[in-house]
């Protein structure tokens, strides 16, 4: 049966993909063990896997792990959500109106290059030391890229689809709602997923000043004591949570845009 064979090939491909990923992950862990237990690198530069696990377990035991994870995740989500809520309409408007684009794009392109780290003192000055300042840092790190990605996605929609809609009698509003938006969804979902990843990289910057919780705060505090095992623990946790949000986004994308064809399919 042709269908069954295609199904089987798909399963085999997926298994080999997953096993390759697992194998590569294991190779890295093996290398890590070799470098540390084998005495090649000093404990200060590279902590042993067991000391990192111990550091994590300690955080679980004194109850700080859960609250730190939650503080950080909440900050990333809120900062990113603010970006997304603003970037979506502004990006779409930039793609649809040449006038608006001419006014706004130069400003965005300029601010995009400003290093967010350098903006921290300004945010403290304007917003104080509360959570708002933290959300703003994450926002500043993601909004300017996201709005351009949205504008790009929307303006790349196949013009023929819009033409077809016109010849079927669609008004401009109907074209935006029924064609432009659904056609942009795959690109938009992708942009959201990628920028969510970037949001995580700004966490440490957000928790750099006047934070008393969060994984970034843990890393920065551990730096002062050269507690490299705790630093690694914090980094790995950030990486894992970031990876987890990425996987969730991929799953949501499959549900929201099941019709999209990718090159690899």
């Amino acid at each position, binding site marked *: 049966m042709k269908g069954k064979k295609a199904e089987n090939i798909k399963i085999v491909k997926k298994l080999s993909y997953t096993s390759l990923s697992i194998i590569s992950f294991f190779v890295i862990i093996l290398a890590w063990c070799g470098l540390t237990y084998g005495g090649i690198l000093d404990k200060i530069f590279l902590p042993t896997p067991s000391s990192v696990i111990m550091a994590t377990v300690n955080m679980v035991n004194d109850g700080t792990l859960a609250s730190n994870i939650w503080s950080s995740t909440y900050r990333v989500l809120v900062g990113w959500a603010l970006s997304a809520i603003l970037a979506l309409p502004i990006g779409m408007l930039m793609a649809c109106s040449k006038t608006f684009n001419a006014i706004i794009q130069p400003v965005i392109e300029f601010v995009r290059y400003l290093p967010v780290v350098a903006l921290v003192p300004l945010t403290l000055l304007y917003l104080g030391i509360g959570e708002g300042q933290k959300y703003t840092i994450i926002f500043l790190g993601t909004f300017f890229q996201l709005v351009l990605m949205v504008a790009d996605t929307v303006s790349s929609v196949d013009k023929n689809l819009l033409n077809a809609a016109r010849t079927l*009698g*669609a008004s401009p509003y109907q074209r935006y709602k029924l064609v432009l938006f659904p056609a942009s969804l795959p690109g938009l979902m992708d942009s959201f997923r990628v920028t969510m990843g970037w949001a995580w990289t700004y966490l440490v910057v957000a928790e750099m000043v006047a934070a008393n919780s969060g994984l970034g705060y843990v890393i920065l505090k551990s730096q002062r004591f050269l507690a490299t095992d705790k630093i690694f623990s914090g980094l790995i946790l950030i990486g894992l949570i970031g990876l987890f949000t990425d996987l969730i986004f991929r799953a949501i994308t499959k549900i929201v845009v099941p019709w999209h064809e990718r090159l690899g399919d």
Partner: protein
Amino acid sequence: MKRKTKLEVKGVNKIFTSHTGQEVHALKDINLVVKEKEFAVIVGPSGCGKSTLLNIVGGLEKATSGTIEVDANKVFEPGADRGMVFQGYSLFPWLTVKENVEFGLKIKGFSAAGREKISTKYIDIVGLNGFEKSLPKTLSGGMKQRVAIARTLANEPSLLLMDEPFGALDAQTRVVMQELLVSISQKTQTTVLFITHDIDEALLLGNKIYVMSRRPGCITEVIDVEFEGTRGHNVLVLPEFMEMKKKIMDMLWQDSTDAANGK
């Protein structure tokens, strides 16, 4: 039999100006008349401006001068009265076959039951029963084009504009689609303006053939194809068809030799 005029193209010119200021005269003084229920075909070499002309009739582009009149009313913008079928199908990939076909009806505000009645009819006419819930990505080229045709016809336009709709299909599928189109146009009695560079296709489908020259495109000849009865591919070998084919080929050949000689 005196038939009403459905489409009149009057003195249409199209000049493109590039950003360097260079002017390209794509269409020169195009005049043509398509009567109700007629199947008119424009045949011409690639680049002669036939797609541009169709886009102007469909309202997707504006003529530099001249007018387009449908049922004696001037038209400038695209509208549901002039349905278009393109070479690239342009199906909405997020909608199923049924939803694609019902798109124009949904816009007009038909109820779900009303839409279903019409879409079922046209999905049946194009022979896609059973594929209502399929997504375009699972369909072959020929099937996609059938959906595109059904989608346009479901809107019941007074004029059907087709821009080399079978150009992207393989030879066998093209033959099947041409015969399908002949039967559809007879069944639905729609007025059609069809563009192609394929002379056989023009002779098979059209009852009036406009031959277009190379750029600047103008109509050099109008041929009436008088043939009673259904045309299958066997008609192409009949003497009268061979004669018409030779005539058109000679014209297009002359045109390209003139081009080569810089006339």
